[in-house]
């Protein structure tokens, strides 16, 4: 196999130059980590006021493998401006894309766009949690947006089976 079957150029690009990397004032903050690998993400999301408010701004900081960093970077581009309902829909689509059984159906859902390149992790069960880390943090942020705005999430119980 060529290395780029899993690590396509787009993934390398996002991991080298993550987009929306940084902190955010007045936002929901979620800390996500995978203790067994040491990957860690701090996700900062500002939702527009009101129920079902859009994702106004979304940034992240943290460190980890190329898969987790690229997934976080691409996720922020995808989710910015989306309503909570749309974001939740994308979360489910993405999860199915990277954690599904067998070969990924081609082409992937159009809504996911560039994120479809992460479907290669399906063949690497140990790495699914890397791709899901930022998304689990976002899922937590959705929940927290109604609460006090700080939370913690780990993907290890769900994906690292």
């Amino acid at each position, binding site marked *: 196999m060529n290395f780029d079957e899993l690590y396509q150029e787009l993934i390398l690009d996002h991991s080298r130059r993550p987009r929306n990397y940084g902190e955010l004032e007045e936002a929901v903050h979620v800390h996500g980590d995978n203790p067994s*690998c040491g990957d860690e993400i701090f996700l900062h999301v500002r939702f527009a006021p009101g129920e079902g408010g859009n994702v106004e701004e979304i940034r992240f900081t943290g460190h980890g493998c190329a898969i987790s960093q690229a997934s976080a970077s691409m996720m922020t581009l995808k989710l910015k401006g989306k309503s909570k309902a749309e974001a939740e829909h994308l979360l489910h689509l993405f999860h199915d894309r990277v954690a599904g059984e067998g070969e990924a159906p081609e082409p992937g859902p159009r809504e996911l766009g560039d994120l479809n390149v992460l479907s290669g992790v399906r063949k690497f069960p140990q790495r699914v949690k890397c791709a899901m880390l930022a998304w689990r943090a976002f899922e937590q942020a959705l929940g927290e947006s109604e609460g006090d705005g700080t939370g913690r999430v780990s993907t290890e119980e769900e994906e690292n089976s």
Partner: protein
Amino acid sequence: MVRTMNHTATFWDNIRADFPILRQEVHGEPLIYFDNAATSQKPRAVIDALSDYYLHDNSNVHRGMHELSARATAKFEAVRGRLAKFINAASEEEIVFTRGTTESINLVAQTWGPQNLTAGDVILLTEMEHHSNLVPWQILAEKTGARLRFIPLTDSHELDLDRLGELLTPEVKLFSFVHISNSLGTINPVVELCRAAREVGAVTLVDAAQSGGHCPLDVQAIGCDFLALSGHKMCAPTGIGALYGRREVLSKMPPWHGGGEMIVSVQYEKSTWKPAPHRFEAGTPNIADTIAFGAALDYLDGIGREAIMEHDQRLAQYAHERLAAIPGLRVLGPPLGSPNRSGVVSFAMQNAHAHDVVTLADRRGLALRGGHHCTQPLMRKLGLASSARASFYFYNTEAEIDRMAEILAEIERFFR
């Protein structure tokens, strides 16, 4: 006990034939198994001992009045004596069978610990301990009010022995430390450390998980009170290991698990215990794996542990030289050429996370390990989230290291 053998290159190449598992392809490439610090492969002799036992002798041990039980008991108990000889214990009664190093350490922490420690006492550890020689003591400290203290590392990833005097004080009741670090490859000066501990009256425990099958071990020369090891890292099956306890210390310890095998007589209200080591072996033991452990000890002594150590160190030295030539790759542990390096070579690549390195190496048939190696506090100390590790054993070759260097150079270019 110790013998030196000058095995030829052909000898080392031929030894691979004893390990059927090594003859396979992974992702279309020949397997290179460099994850020996996690678990070693098993030679045919050990696999045969395991199946022979189930094919011919399987029965429960002790108290059985029939032929199969007598055979199983004799073979099982013979391994106690065999292991005592392997580590030069004064008596086979100093050998307790456990599931492995982790269980051995927990046994000491949960029996010797509460009996001997009170608030204000100190448990001395080092900054390079595996979680298995850290967490049991944290639990014990919580329970007894004892405090933990750590010997720091030098810049060359060795123990800072200049600090020993101020840390190894009379409040230290137990000094537990790793012989060979699983994440740095550092070999610690066991004899010197145990001698220093004796001077302040501290009991010592040596975590020999990485040294048990890799170098000669003589518990009397080391002068430790306890030594813990795992069979599966030294050619035996998983699920079997041992605790060595010096008789004077072991014989005074209270039982751990209660049940069959460990009692002399049982009444409804009260029971009396067998002496050590059986006092610590409640329930039916791991008979088959123990017998196969004995076969592993015979196999290792057939090669000679001095020869194994020389071979491991030669490979590690060669790997260190080859890896140091790859741009942006930093090898952890004592410097190149140091005699305090074992067959463990950990490294960090500047532009690639250890998990990405290990995932891509696997696509080339190369089995490495990446992560914190169950030494999270150490990795934090070194400022690394993780590192990748190649760990060698006597069936590995220089040709495999050449291939590893090619693969890692390819990975480095890919992530550059």
